[in-house]
């Protein structure tokens, strides 16, 4: 199977705190891959690094055979001090244009814009008006609640509706790789189930590769093919999701059994 995303030995620091320590992992084309771990383990940082929002201290990120992020090496002129320069090979907007869409943590909807305008922004890179209109109709079919609220300001939507809107917005550009940062955070169990069902459909029918980060380990492992477990900025376990669900360590630490 083809590796769509390859993360090789990356580290990210916030000042003196190392948020990611030599993380390596990969996402195969067509899969749903999940990354579970406690709050503060570095999961969101990893997603931000992929889209070029966090500079790498070491390592490389390759997407679809192309190097998209790499670390700038130590700067000898700065007296051997590690310079925290912004290192991604591509800026975030250029990475987005390559077909990676991130649904960020906390949804980050454009609250003062309507649902429809938010979707228009998701399609900013698409220059074909007919295609945009078609995509919007698809989204309104797929998430009927968004169709009903298309002229409402996004701030008036509930948390679950905003999450659906953030996912729809990310899908407007027809990405190859969809990154989801805690899609279930703060939502009611039924709403979470609904969202995970949608994610499965997006993966199976639209052939979008999905990489999701979740604290809700059970939900995430059930929804995915492959799983990684992160602790304190390191990958500590990697296996098929089914095997992780049976793993004693995982069951004790993340599934509360």
């Amino acid at each position: 199977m083809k590796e769509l995303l390859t993360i090789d030995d990356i580290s990210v620091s916030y000042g003196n705190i190392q948020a990611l320590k030599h993380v390596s992992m990969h996402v195969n084309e067509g899969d749903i891959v999940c990354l579970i771990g406690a709050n503060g383990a570095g999961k969101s940082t990893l997603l931000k690094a992929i889209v070029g929002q966090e500079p790498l201290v070491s390592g490389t990120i390759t997407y679809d055979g192309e190097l998209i992020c790499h670390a700038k090496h130590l700067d000898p002129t700065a007296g051997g001090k590690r310079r925290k320069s912004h290192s991604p090979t591509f800026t975030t907007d250029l990475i987005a244009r390559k077909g990676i869409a991130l649904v960020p943590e906390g949804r980050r909807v454009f609250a003062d814009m309507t649902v429809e305008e938010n979707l228009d922004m998701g399609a900013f890179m698409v220059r074909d008006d007919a295609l945009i209109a078609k995509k919007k109709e698809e989204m309104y079919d797929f998430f009927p609640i968004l169709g009903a609220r298309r002229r409402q300001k996004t701030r008036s939507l509930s948390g679950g509706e905003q999450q659906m809107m953030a996912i729809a917005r990310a899908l407007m550009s027809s990405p190859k790789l969809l990154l989801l940062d805690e899609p279930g955070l703060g939502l009611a169990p039924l709403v979470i189930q609904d969202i995970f069902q949608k994610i499965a459909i997006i993966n199976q029918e639209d052939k979008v590769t999905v990489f999701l980060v979740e604290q809700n380990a059970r939900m995430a492992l059930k929804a995915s093919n492959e799983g990684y477990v992160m602790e304190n900025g390191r990958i500590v376990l990697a296996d098929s999701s089914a095997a992780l669900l049976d793993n004693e360590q995982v069951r004790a630490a993340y599934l509360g059994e």
Partner: protein
Amino acid sequence: MGSVSEFFQHLMNGLTLGGIYALIALGYTMVYGILKFINFAHGDILMVGAYIGLFVFDGLRGDAPLGVWTFTAFLIAMLVSMAGCGVLGMVIERVAYKPLRKATRLAPLLSAIGVSFILSNSAAWMFGTQSRKLAYPFHNDSIVVGGVVITPHQILILAVSFIMMIVLKLFIDNTRMGKAMRATSLDQDTARLMGIDVNQVISLTFAIGSALAAVGGMLIALDFKVYPTMGTMTGLKAFVAAVVGGIGNITGAMVGGILLGILETFGVAIFGIPQGLKDTIAFGILIIILLVKPEGLLGKAEKEKV
């Protein structure tokens, strides 16, 4: 005294002045909306716009008598001035503000004050400190409509400023780049995730704001003098208008500008504030707004982000 017609007379004068304030206030508010920074060189851009317009108009007009050509020449001069200031605004942003985008918030502010001095002093050096007068582009014989005296200049000022505001509003609300500007002002990081080139949006914002200031400068030049520091007080008042309307809010800048123009006119004409104290009206209003509704008339109270 026909007090009703007198009221409309002052309203007309206030609207004219307010339209100009609004055009200039838009530049402050658009830049603030995206960069959270007050471009204190904005007032000097309107001065540059007035000079460009004046020179281009003089060159085109030659000795032609007032008529269709002089009016056309005025409009061409306005377009050239808009283009010139648009480019100037983008260059200033690239050279003086962009390198400081990650610096403390005070740094670009100081840089802006520096740019302001450079612009006004360069104008004084190149064109002299004496004030100039823009020749009339058409006859300015006032007409009386229902007891209200209106000059053709006022009609032009009103028409141009309101057309510019409507076009801007349509652009911001309906076009792809306009929506991208709004998205960028709401959440820059997420805008980038959509594939929006934020640097490009920022350049566009400076270009549009500066082009509107150029129009404001030329409209001022119709009735007032052109001199190197002409932008200082007007720029400051337009900034007050932007704050009164709610800085960062486009409609707010329009409302704030028009309101300020009307209140200044009424303050002198109706409430009897001496002409010499006219400039204090704007700042008095600023103090009241900051005390009563600091986020401005149309601004939203911003919650501190944790």
